[in-house]
Each structure stands twice: as C-alpha cells, then as structure tokens.
C-alpha cells in the first residue's frame, strides 16, 4: 500500500503536489518557477535595492539641502526649461521602450531595432542635456566641491545619469544580441531585465525632477 506521504509519479491533470493548474497560489508550492519568473523577480529585487541606494542619496540631499556655505542655492541655480525637456525626453523613451517590449513579444526584428534605437537616442539626448547642465553649473562656480548642498545634488542626479549611461551601453549590447542571435529565450529574459531597468530609471527621475528640481526651485520661504 503506497503511503500518502510520498507520490513520485505526478497526476498530470493536477499538477505537482495536487494543486490544480490555473489555481494560482503564488506561494511557490507548485515547484520551481519558470526561468522567466525567476529572472524577472530576481531583477525586480535588484531594482528595489537600487531604489534603496538612491534613497540614501536622497536622504543625504535632503539633510544637506540648506548647507550652501555661502554659495549658490537651488533656487538660484535650477533652470526648469532644461529639466522639462529632460523629463519629456525620458518619458518618451520609456514609452518607446514599452513598444520595444511589444516588438520583442511578437518577435519582430525590424520594430525591435527601431524602437530600441529611438529609445537609445532619446536617452542620449537626456545625457547630453544633463552634462550641459552640470558643465554650466561648474562654470558658474557652482561645482560639487563648492558646498555640501552641491556635492549632494551632483551625486544624486549624477548617480542617476551614470545609471542611464550604463543602461545605454546595455541597450547597445541588447540591440547587437538581438541582431546577431535572434530572439533566443535567454536574450529575451535579459531584455526583460533591461526594460525593467529603463522604466525604473524613469521612476527615479520622476522623484528627482519633482523633489529636487521643482521643490528646489521654490523660493526659500515656501520650504518646510
């Protein structure tokens, strides 16, 4: 008499461990998840850790915001026109990245490359604008070593910029991989991670342009 404690041959109608398919538990009791889920979830956790790192830089920025050491303050420095263009460009690039995801889902090489190229160009424009902004600050004597406020500003926004630049490198690599190797499963998984990354960078930019640029450009009397 076979023990109910162990059943090695699995009833295909029921799925492993007797759980009916379609009955989603989300509790992992159906055995190891498919690779796509594992890769995606792992990258999701990585993204959260990255957001936590940004929050440490945010905290430093918030604490040091008023420490201008006699130098320029946010209100005096920030040019919201540049910020508006950067925001628009990055938001558009998030949209085109979504289009690229759809193209990959439909295995369409042409539209994948086009959407990724546009995404990359928009990201490149963002970086150029940001470098221009930083250079203009430095030229006005408002470089990162001028004061603690400026150190924290350059670090926070610069860290985001470095992430975007690394993402652009990754984007180029993805375009090359899709072109050279087609829509192989592991490359699609990698692209899933890339698109998560790109969307997350726009999310962080939302926090930055609202809480750093827009709040910072308010007259000092209005700040808590």
């Amino acid at each position: 008499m076979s023990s109910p404690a162990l059943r090695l041959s699995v009833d295909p109608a029921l799925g492993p461990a007797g759980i009916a398919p379609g009955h989603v538990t989300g509790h992992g009791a159906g055995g190891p998840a498919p690779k796509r889920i594992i890769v995606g979830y792992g990258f999701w956790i990585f993204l959260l850790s990255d957001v936590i790192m940004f929050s440490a830089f945010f905290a430093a920025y918030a604490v040091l915001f008023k420490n201008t050491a006699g130098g320029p303050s946010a209100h005096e420095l920030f040019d919201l026109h540049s910020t508006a263009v950067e925001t628009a460009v990055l938001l558009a690039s998030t949209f085109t990245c979504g289009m690229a995801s759809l193209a990959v889902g439909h295995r369409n090489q042409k539209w994948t490359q086009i959407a990724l190229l546009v995404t990359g160009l928009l990201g490149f424009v963002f970086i150029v604008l940001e470098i221009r902004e930083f250079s203009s600050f430095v030229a006005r004597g408002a470089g990162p070593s001028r004061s603690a406020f400026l150190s924290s500003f350059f670090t926070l926004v610069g860290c985001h910029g470095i992430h975007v630049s690394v993402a652009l490198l990754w984007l180029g690599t993805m375009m090359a991989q899709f072109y050279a190797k087609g829509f192989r499963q592991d490359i699609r998984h990698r692209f899933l991670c890339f698109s998560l990354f790109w969307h997350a960078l726009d999310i962080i930019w939302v926090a930055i342009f609202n809480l750093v640029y827009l709040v910072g450009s308010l007259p000092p009397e209005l700040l808590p």
Partner: protein
Amino acid sequence: MLGKLSWQAVPFDQPIALAAGAFVVLVIVGALVWVAAKGYIPYLWREWITSVDHKRIGIMYCLLAAVMLVRGFIDALMMRSQQALAFHAAGYLPPEHYNQIFSAHGTIMIFFMAMPFVIGLMNFAMPLQLGVRDVAFPTLNSVSFWLTAAGALLVNLSLVVGEFARTGWLPYPPLSELTYSPGVGVDYYLWAIQISGVGTLMTGINMVTTVLKIRAPGMSYMRMPIFCWTTLASNLVIVAAFPILTATLAMLLLDRYVGFHFFTNEAGGNAMMFQNLIWAWGHPEVYILVLPAFGVFSEVVSTFSGKPLFDRRSMIVATLGICILSLCVWLHHFFTMGAGGDVNAVFGIASMIIAVPTGVKIYNWLFTMYGGRVRFSSAMLWSIGFMVTFVIGGMTGVLLASPVADFVLHNSLFLVAHFHNVIIGGVVFGVFAGYTYWFPKAFGFVLDERLGKAAFWCWFVGFYVTFVPLYVVGLEGMTRRMQRFDRPEWYPWMLVAEVGVLTILCGIVLQIAQLWVSIRQRAKRRDLTGDPWDGRSLEWSTTSPPPVFNFAVLPVVTSDEPYWSIKQEARARRHLVTAEPDYAPIEMPRNSPTGFVTAFFAVVTGFSLIWHIWWLVILGLIGAYVTFVAFAWRDHTEFEIPAEEVARIDRANRAARAAALAGEPVR
C-alpha cells in the same frame, strides 16, 4: 606612471608589520607553489574555481572565513597582549600600528569572517533543504564569492603594500577624511568593502529569489525548514541594508577623491550624517549575521533532541519580526551624539522591543529540548553554549538600549564586551555548530567529536574569561581602543583577559587539530548513508556529498518534516517506501570563469584606485565590461547529465539506505 605607489609603501621600517607581511606572502606563495607542483591546478580550476555549484561555493566561502578567522584572531591576540602589557608602559605596539590592528580586526571579523561563514552555510544547505538543484542564479553566486574574496585580498594586501585604516572598523569622518587620513589606509578599507559589498548584495538577491521562487513541489511557505526562513529574512535585510552602505561609502570616497563636502568640516559638510547612514546599515548588518545562526540552532536543536521544533509558527513570526525591527533601531549606536530625549527614547524603546521575538525563539528552543531525547554532540554543545551566552549578551544589550545607561557606557569596554558576547555567543557559536552539523554532508566523513567538544569547552570558558573582565573595566570607566592606560584597578583584569584569549587560542588550535585528524582518518569516519545525525530535513536524504544535481527527482513535499516522515515509515516497514522513480536526463548550469575573472579585474581596479594609478583603473573597468559581454554572449550555458548516470548514482544511494534499514552493515 604608478600613481602614489613606490617602494616606500612596503613597511621596511616597521619590524612587526614587515614580519607579518613577509609571513603572509611566504604562506600564500608557498601554498601556490605546492599546489602547482602537485599538479592540482587543473583540478582546482575545473572543479572549484570555475564552479557554479552552490555546494562548492558554500564550501569556499567557509574556507575563506576560516582563514580570515585566524587572521582576525591574531589581531585580537595582539590587542589583548598590548593591553596586558601597557600599564604605565608603552607596550610593544606603537599607537599608529595599534590603531590599524583594531581597525583590521573589526573589518576582517565582520566582513571577511562572519559574513562569508553565514553566507557559506546558507549557500550550502538552503537549496538542499528546499529540495532543489541550485540557487536562482548560479553564475552570479560564483561572482559574489569571488568579489568577497577580492575584498579580503585587498585588505590583506594592505599588510604588505601600504597601510590599513586607523579609524576603527567604521571610518567616521572627519578622521577618515583626506585632511586627517591622507594615507592609503582608508582607501584600502573603502574599496575592499565596496567590492565585497557588491558581491554580498548579489547574494542577497540570489537567495531571496531562490527561497521565494525555487522550492520542491508541495513545499509551501509553512513547510519550509526554519533555516530557510532565516535565510530569507537575513537576505531580505541584506537587500535592504547593503545599498545604504554602498551609498554612504561612495559619499566618503567622493569626499576623499574629488573634494566633495558630504562629511567635511568645511563648506557645510555634516559629519554626523555619516554616523546616521552607516549605522542605518550597521545595525541590520548584525542581524544579517545572527539570523542564519538562529536558523542553524533551530535545525541542530531539533535534530539532536529528536523532536520537531516547538511551535514553528511563532518561530517564523519571530524571525520576520526581527527582520523588520532590525531596520528600525539604528540610532542606539549614537545615543550620545545629541539627537535629544524624544528621538533617543523612541529608538531606545524600539531596541528593547527587538529583544522580545528573540526571547520567543529562545523559549521555543528550550521547549524543543524539553521532553526530547537530547544527544550532547558537539553541535548541540555549541547550541546550548549559545543559549546561555547569547542571553547574557542580549541582556547587556537591553541595558545599553536605555539611553540613560548608554550615556555612561557608550564606547567603553562594556560595549565591546556586549557586542562580542552576542557575536561570539550568537554568530561564531552558530557557524561552528553549522560547520560541525553539515561537514559530513559536504565532505562525506564525520569530524572527530572528542576534539570538537574539547574545542567547544576552550572557546566557551575562554570567552567568559576574556570578556567578563571587559564588562568590569567598562563599568569602571575604561574606554575602548586604548593603546595604553595607567589606572591600576584595570590592570589585573587585563591580565585575566589575556589568559582568556590564550584559552580561546587553544580552542582554535584544537579545531585545526580536529580537521587534521578527521581528514587523516576519513576512511574510518565515512558517512555511508548520508544521514549521520538522524536528521529531519531533506538534505539528509541525499548522499554525502550529494551529487552535483542534488536530487535525482525533485521530492514532493507533503509535511513540514518531509524526510522525517518518510524515514519513520520506512523504518516501520524496514524497507524503502518509495518506488524507484522514472529517471530523466538532468540539465545543470555549466561552470564559468566569469566570477574569477570579474574578481581579478575588481582587484586590479581597486588596487589602482587606491594608489591613484588612473590608466590601470580604466583598463580594469574595460576588462570588467568585456567579461560581462563575454558572459552574455555564451551560447551553451547548460550541460546534460544522461538518465543512466542519474540512475546509477541514485540507485547506489537507495541501495545504501535499504541496507541500513534492513540492518546489514553498509558496504
């Protein structure tokens, strides 16, 4: 061309440092020459260095930790000896050197001994306990290990080339800023920790994903072994806390390298913010260390009491409670910095509350033992020693959690005694218990129990003899990190502490002897069934050591002690319960040099950043990028083990167990 690097970086004028450095170089070079001469390099490269197998990586982590334990302990010996000699005297260590030694001691023990040890144990045991073949990202696992080893290498390099930080194990500004620490010491520290910190964060991501997404069929959350729950909790805290460390050390690096003003005295910097942010990482860090130790104790106590763990549900709730609370108490490390009564009170109360779930766990372990048939093996001795020692350490912690008391005791030797009490009693005893417990599974033979018990007693007695005097002098007002002192009341206690540390030294020697003797006698000590301790969880259903694929067929789990329930039924019937499964070919991830090569470039980049050799930095970064792309460009990522091979291995396991059940001697 070589930045700040010159022959003056080698400490020719400091005899002790020179001797130590020369010794380390000789040992390393000697080991490499011996390995090469014996022809082991191809084997080591193929089977260990490029391995992505969680079992191998776990063993390498523990090996790294064991070596660093010796290095860190030598630092401790030197410190205790200095303090035993330096009453109205200069001692034998000048202050500049002494400061490096206590900084290196703390840095090595936390980052390169305790962290690798617990990560190694989690790496080895967790996938086996979950009934699966490997962690979520095996190659990333290898990268994590090698990055940790790269950090350890950099710290040890500072012994030979340059100097180490003199700031303590957490480099508070303004002392750690360029103005007051112009040398390379703080830079060695910063880059070593940043590099190994990336590795640890990758481990956190890897293990959280594994525990949540890769388990045997039927293993719901409530059926997971408690060690896997503590693995989950500890790695969630890693994911939450290590980014803060990376960010904060990055800010200090920017201050030092590019003249930023996060923590400087000038231009509006705020040195207090460093302490706030670093302890927002630092407190969760100690819970990252102790949670897996708690998990080990849950496994060991339940196995050696012959009873299921008492009240799993409250254990799990307590574990998750500790996980979240550990992120809410960090200010108790700087009560005296001046946040005021309101803030101090909130964090003080939170720090006391965190003792409650820990107390729940202690009671559960005690109730597990109560009514059980307790076997006092050395692993169990470590566990009982832990319960006594950790409770005392926890109580002194609750004492310190009161800001009023802390104002008197902050940064005294009382504090030092407290944290050693909980770290040694908790983490060190825990990893020793886990090491003893899982050693047979990893290597196929059991460690010598007598030497193990002798080592335990030396550690246990030695710990109290070393640290109770420190509690006393701490209450009498002796501050930490004193290179010399002149209060006569403290002197006898320093001598007692010296006796204690020599006793611990005996313990370490006995552990080395235990390993040596056990290896030499391994034929006699072989674990033939894979279940030397009458275990209860799934790792004991595999051979010792397990095959590369762990399980021929993933087990289907229907209870919270899956192996125990099958075993009891098999014992009742005196033969195996399950039929031979349908063997299928198994695909496993290929080995990869990615981890080793990445770490190589990390060391190159780190070293050249420390010495300001900018062209080499760029080369190192390019090398790292090329490694990523090469890894991403692989076409063949897995290899297949044919069904016949799987069948052969599994049939041998089944035969051995069937023989044990029938009472025959296992051949």
